[in-house]
């Protein structure tokens, strides 16, 4: 008998008290919690997202399609970036006005090389207003998980209101678990020193979120 069978055997013996007809999972779990907290218009939901992002020290900008390239250019310049990482299918117009050299994320790009790139620009899959969270799912406008991790400056573009949901339950409905997912709520932080939150550890220390009007 191998360990798998021994463990499963122990589990079954441990559960001898559980009757064969124990009720279904659906019956066992009440789902009477809220799908979202409070009623808001789309615009109010977007406002709440902006508020909660800022509350956890993300820098929030709002713009439209026409001004987006100029805003990105300004943000990169303000950060002093000479290079920026871009995922394979970031809309070309977003960075059309930007001076920094585009470094395209390719398999042969080593972590050491990425570490020398100052900024990264990505899209996102969904944003959660109640928690101020961005979720990236590795789609071609977001790229591999590492590109939004190694550079110290992350610019993330969220299409509003189409990519915004109110709550965690609504976000999970939109996401595909087979994709690698990264949930981001503010810049990297730690509570490890005296249980006080401090921003800025291993992930990007500056997170700029652009809310782009659809």
């Amino acid at each position, binding site marked *: 008998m191998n*360990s798998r069978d021994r*463990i*499963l*055997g*122990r*589990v*079954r*013996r*441990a*559960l001898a*008290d*559980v009757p064969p007809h*124990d009720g279904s*999972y659906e019956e066992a*779990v*009440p789902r*009477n*919690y*809220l799908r979202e907290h409070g009623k808001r218009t789309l615009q109010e939901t977007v406002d709440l997202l902006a508020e909660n992002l800022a509350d*956890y020290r993300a820098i929030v900008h709002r713009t439209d399609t026409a001004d987006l390239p100029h805003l990105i250019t300004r943000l990169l310049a303000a950060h002093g970036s000479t290079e920026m990482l871009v995922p394979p299918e970031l809309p070309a117009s977003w960075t059309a006005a930007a001076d920094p050299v585009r470094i395209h994320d390719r398999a042969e790009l080593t*972590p*050491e090389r990425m*570490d020398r790139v100052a900024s990264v620009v990505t899209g996102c899959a969904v944003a*959660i207003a*109640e*928690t*101020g*969270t961005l979720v990236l799912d*590795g789609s071609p406008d977001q790229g*591999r*998980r*590492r590109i939004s*991790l190694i550079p110290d400056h992350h610019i993330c573009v969220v299409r509003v209101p189409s990519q915004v949901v109110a709550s*965690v*339950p609504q976000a*999970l409905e939109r996401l595909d*678990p*087979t994709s*690698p*997912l*990264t*949930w*981001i*709520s*503010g810049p*990297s*932080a*730690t*509570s*490890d*020193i*005296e*249980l*006080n*939150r*401090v921003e*800025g*550890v*291993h*992930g990007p220390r500056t997170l700029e979120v652009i809310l782009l009007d659809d």
Partner: protein
Amino acid sequence: MSGTFVGMPAFPEAARTAVDDPTLRGNLRHATHTIRAKRASAVAELADWAELREAGRRIKDHTLRHLDRFLEQLEASVTAAGGTVHWAEDAEEANRIVAALVKETGESEVVKVKSMATQEIGLNEALQAEGIRAYETDLAELIVQLGKDRPSHILVPAIHRNRGEIRDIFTHEMAAWGRPAPEDLTDTPADLAEAARLHLREKFLRAKVGISGANFMVAETGTLVVVESEGNGRMCLTLPQTLISVVGIEKIVPTWRDLEVFLQTLPRSSTAERMNPYTSMWTGTSDEDGPRAFHLVLLDNGRTDTLADQIGRQALRCIRCSACLNVCPVYERAGGHAYGSVYPGPIGAILTPQLRGTASEIDASLPYASSLCGACYEVCPVAIDIPEVLVHLRERIVQGGPAVRHGNKVVLRPARGHAAERAAMRAAAWAFGHPGALRTGQRLAARSRRLHPRTLPGPGRAWSATRDLPAMPAEPFRDWWQRTHGGKDAK
């Protein structure tokens, strides 16, 4: 980590030392009081907290009651997604599996995401013995590793250290492990975090093997979830070519949708945030993105024994949030080390004696490390009735009885050292069953009251060393009642 828990004194003795350490008392008081108020307000933001808590409890209970089925389902979905599943009965087997997997890669160092399961099995020491160096990358774990210390909190293993102590550890120890601390390192938390960032970055960038635990495993999809703050988790989960996750078998949730409950309750309960900075979710391996090889080691190590106890099994609902530690008045004063386990605080007091058994002095003392005030139960996001389990385990210790150890049914003998107490409890129960005898005792005590000392010798000193005894009244109430009400309602 070079500190271990072997040969720990029983809880009361270890706690006494901690209570007398003013720095430790100050550090713990400051940290736990800071987080308590924040947690309360983060929880108060959600009008449906009670419903979320109940749903979390039910999801976990249902999973535990059908754990065999969900384990098999998880194994199938992880395998289908490109992962390899291993099963480990105990710490020794889990360590052997992990060491062999690391050796297969030809590497001699690994980067680690903070993980309670690998702390529990002593993985770092086991890898060290095989010539493999494990680097802890969570800030608090790094502080513990560099300080050759032991963890004292589930979420913040270095909670017993203040900023000044952390600065000294970084200044003196970092050089031996890699990039030294900056020469002019101050004790401001931002500078300390920056020092850790610089020290660990070179390790992340060259790492070929990452080791993690997981907060949740979704049976239907094979998805693993790691909840973190710093980004060290993301580094370890995405940059290496090989990822090995060691996860307790109780960490399963049945469906993807179940995450909607725990991703709301866990961050608010642990760091008091609406959401923690980073959460990673991965299902097997993905083309081009992340590790090429993914191994999941499913760990028993006493969990099936715990599952066999119908009252004790609720401890397996735990999602390791630490809210019970932060609110516990005993933890606040005794500190985490006194619990002699990587699981300190109220949850540790019910988990450790079930995972390890109650044979050792420290483990048998843990169920008594509580005033049963109930604050832990009140804050638990999966409604573990910790006081109920504590009392249940006390019963197992003083009275013995059936239990399961290493998968075998055993009958535990009553613990030694409780004989006098047992006799006293029985005598008291007898007296309380005979009001006449009780009354005689009360009268004797009342009449001799002028002879009573205010402090006691022998075992009574445990009380009277710090507290005066109440003065004995001239007569017990029942005598007064008899005199004044003439035995009305006498029975």
